[in-house]
């Protein structure tokens, strides 16, 4: 069995992981004509994410233009994955993504950060976002209504509005914001989650009932902010029709997982992968390398019943960092890369604690991960690639603090794009 994929063919590339990085690499490779198999333990972290492509929000001061801030940021953080990403690559990968999302649009570019309210009302810098969210850029807003949906416990409009009012933006006045709690028909259900509301908003009757209630409650607000639940596959038309019915611009605000906008983008990219001939194998945990004479010839996969081998010419490791299980720490503090046992960098040394007492401290363990060369190949202690045909992408690469920098999807998109590019160069 060794040397052959489960379906009897050797894949050109096996991609491990179905988050932003893995899907980007997988789609790009498949569209270039390679035989791609994406294996994933679960549905992928993208479905939990706001699906805004944050490139660089804080470094640590708030960044106005990621493209222009990048050089200085990399100079100050030489081990950061962005050290491998030029502004040109960033722009290319962003355009690549925009071209692939067809049922709605992504707006913005790495030149400018928008400031979009979070679900606690903090104006958060983000560069490339769904068109349904871009209207929330508070640099252009003066007077908004923030609406909640009574049965949704994951969005509290009064807190969003209060904090927005208190959030003065440099060079601009604070936003005037008022909250409205709507009570949409839920068939008597008191506890309706974001995904369930996402499905309901795809129904025209539900939409118009909410729009009617909202219209009656609005005063002279210039725009309406609401939780990001405006449907899945038809979000473009759902959003357009809802705005028309309300009579004002409406923008979505992403909230805590699970994420409707995350599911949208994950579905779009998975569909792209499928249409390009790529395979997607779910419930398949990668557990180790398949080696022949020391050379990586595939990945061992554990499915429900047994262990199999996915043979491949190239492997993309996009398993994520500590949050996704791509990097693990055991009870004795040992840090390991969980699939291939690759060398891990950035771990605290000796007696140094991994975590500091204050929650918002920068913790020594924050930025652990593998280190890669310019072709995105994980390297050993001497800087040499561990395998010629192994590439890493996304949060498994150390050196970043993505949730603090607001850089997660930007790193995943650009390194996924670059890892695929390196494999395509090898294939030529």
């Amino acid at each position, binding site marked *: 069995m060794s040397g052959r994929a489960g379906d009897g063919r050797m894949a050109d590339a096996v991609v491990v992981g179905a988050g932003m990085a893995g899907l980007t690499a997988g789609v790009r490779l498949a569209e270039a004509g390679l035989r791609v198999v994406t294996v994933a333990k679960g549905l992928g972290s993208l479905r*939990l*994410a*706001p699906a805004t492509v944050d490139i660089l929000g804080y470094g640590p001061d*708030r960044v106005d233009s990621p493209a222009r801030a990048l050089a200085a940021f990399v100079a100050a953080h030489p081990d950061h994955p962005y050290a491998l990403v030029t502004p040109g690559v960033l722009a290319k990968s962003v355009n690549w993504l925009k071209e692939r999302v067809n049922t709605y649009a992504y707006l913005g570019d790495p030149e400018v950060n928008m400031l979009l309210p*979070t*679900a*606690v*009302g*903090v*104006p*958060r810098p983000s560069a490339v976002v769904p068109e349904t969210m871009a209207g929330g850029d508070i640099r252009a807003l003066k007077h908004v209504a923030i609406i909640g949906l009574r*049965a949704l*416990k*994951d*969005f*509290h409009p*009064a*807190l969003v509005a*209060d*904090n927005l*009012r*208190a*959030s*003065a933006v440099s060079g601009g006045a604070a936003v005037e914001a008022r909250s409205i709690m709507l009570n949409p028909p839920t068939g*008597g*259900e*008191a*506890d309706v989650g974001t995904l369930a509301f996402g499905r309901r908003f795809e129904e025209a009757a539900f939409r118009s009932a909410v729009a009617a209630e909202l219209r009656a409650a609005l005063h002279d607000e210039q725009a309406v902010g609401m939780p990001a639940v405006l449907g899945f596959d038809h979000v473009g038309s759902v959003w357009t029709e809802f705005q028309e019915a309300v009579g004002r611009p409406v923008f979505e605000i*992403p*909230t*805590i*997982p699970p994420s409707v906008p995350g599911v949208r983008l994950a579905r779009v990219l998975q569909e792209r992968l499928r249409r390009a001939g790529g395979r997607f194998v779910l419930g398949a945990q990668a557990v180790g390398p398949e080696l022949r004479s020391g050379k990586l010839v595939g990945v061992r996969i554990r499915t429900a019943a047994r262990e199999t081998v996915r043979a491949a010419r190239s492997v993309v490791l996009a398993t994520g*960092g*500590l*949050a*996704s*299980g791509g990097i*693990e*720490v*055991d*009870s*004795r*503090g040992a840090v390991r890369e969980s699939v291939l046992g690759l060398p891990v960098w950035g771990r605290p040394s000796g007696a140094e*604690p*991994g*975590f*500091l*007492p*204050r*929650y*918002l401290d920068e913790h020594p*363990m924050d930025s652990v991960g593998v280190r890669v060369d310019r072709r995105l190949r994980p390297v050993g202690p001497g800087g040499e690639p561990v395998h010629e045909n192994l590439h890493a992408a996304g949060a498994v690469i150390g050196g970043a603090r*993505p*949730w*603090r920098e*607001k850089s*997660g999807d930007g790193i995943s998109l650009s390194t996924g794009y670059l890892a695929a590019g390196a494999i395509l160069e090898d294939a030529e």
Partner: protein
Amino acid sequence: MRGFSTVLVERADLATGTTGRFHGLLHSGGRYVVKDPKAAQECLAENVALRRIAADSIEDTGGMFVTTPIDDPGYADQFVQACIATGIPVEEIPVAEALRREPRLNPQISRALVVPDATVDCWQVVWSTVRSAAEHGARIFPYHEVVKVTRDGSRVTGALVRGPGGDEVQIRAEVVISATGAWAGRIAAMAGCKVNVLPGKGIMVAMSHRLVNTVVNRCESPSDGDILVPIHTVSVIGTTDVQVADPDDWSISHAEIDQMLEAGENLVPGFRAARALRVWGGVRPLFQDDLPAQSRDVTRAHAVLDHSDRDGVERFLTIVGGKFCTFRLMAQDAVDAACTVLGTQRPCRTADEPLPDSADGRFYWMGSRLARREASLHDDQLICECELIQRGRLEDAMVQRGTANLDDIRRILRLGMGPCQGGFCTFRATGILHQAMKLSASEANRAMLEFLQERWKGVQPLLHGDQLRQAWLDNWIFQGVLDVEHLPGMAQTREHAPV
């Protein structure tokens, strides 16, 4: 209950000193039976009394003393003898039966002895007791710290206390009782008296689920990490015993945590790979006038000190020593002494009159929250999935407590105490608190950041494995998605947040 007009003051929230910092084991007395039969007898009597008055806070898990491979095989016979002599019901069961009841137990155990241990929710007992006291006219002031014990000559006349806003209030009283545990020496000093308390620090580690459903003790002289207690949705291993100079020293070392995980491995093989949630320390108030070398050898029994005999200071009593299980008896003895001081005899009824919510005598059981949830499945929101807390109960607790502090709510409802450690409920509870208590945005923001800090405090020293993964998901939610580090007006809080 004895008809006195009483005021209770506590420097922080109730049960945040030592009471809320133990593992939740309601002793049968077995743990002390060989070495300290007096303490064992008290435990047994109070175990019976608390089952009668505080059933709603107690889960009747039963307890088991097991001889593990590292234990002296002869101890079990001594243990059985001592239990019989003390009156603790004890039954030896075959090892196979013990393993059938608790399949995760170390299969190498050689003996298993069943005793009537149970588990008890310390906060629920405290709040039920407080409700009962309030119904009898007591006034309760949490977050009021004693700054001075006032005297008129040799006679104590009351206390000067500082409230949450910094305002000072003089309380006048016929008699002052110091029930301040490991802090008793400090309060006594304010009255010009001397009390020697040995603060003995112990740490506990909570695992994310119930590895056992029975309290499991090693059948051996009490030592470190020899108790595993199933309580609510988690199980807790404890504890250590380290003398500390400062009763506010709750620091936790890596070595202590590792010692607990290793001890857990002996009781339940695979313990190290199970998901460790959280760690905390508590300080035992061990009383002795002459300092011995090892605090665990000090008696756990308590003492009531009348300072007129000891220090020539009248109308001032200290109740010290003891342990959670004997809190009722300690209170009884202290109030008996106060009656003597006041020259009156009034009988104590606390051993017989059930606390509010416990009148029906039904014990707490694991499914009770789920049953409550199922009864209102479509009518109420589930705010904390881990601990099954509904929105209605949360709002009621906020309004009843009148608090803007989510940690106060935690101690009432277990908010944020389950496997996700507040990852989801903190955000929801903040939004609800903001509305229910009509808070300003900055008050709500502070409540959220302080609760995040409070949760982080207990996970940070032992983060690894799946709990680290959870903590990183939580970070990603709060910092990545919500950007809480840039909440308006919070720079101050970040600088000065309590550690």
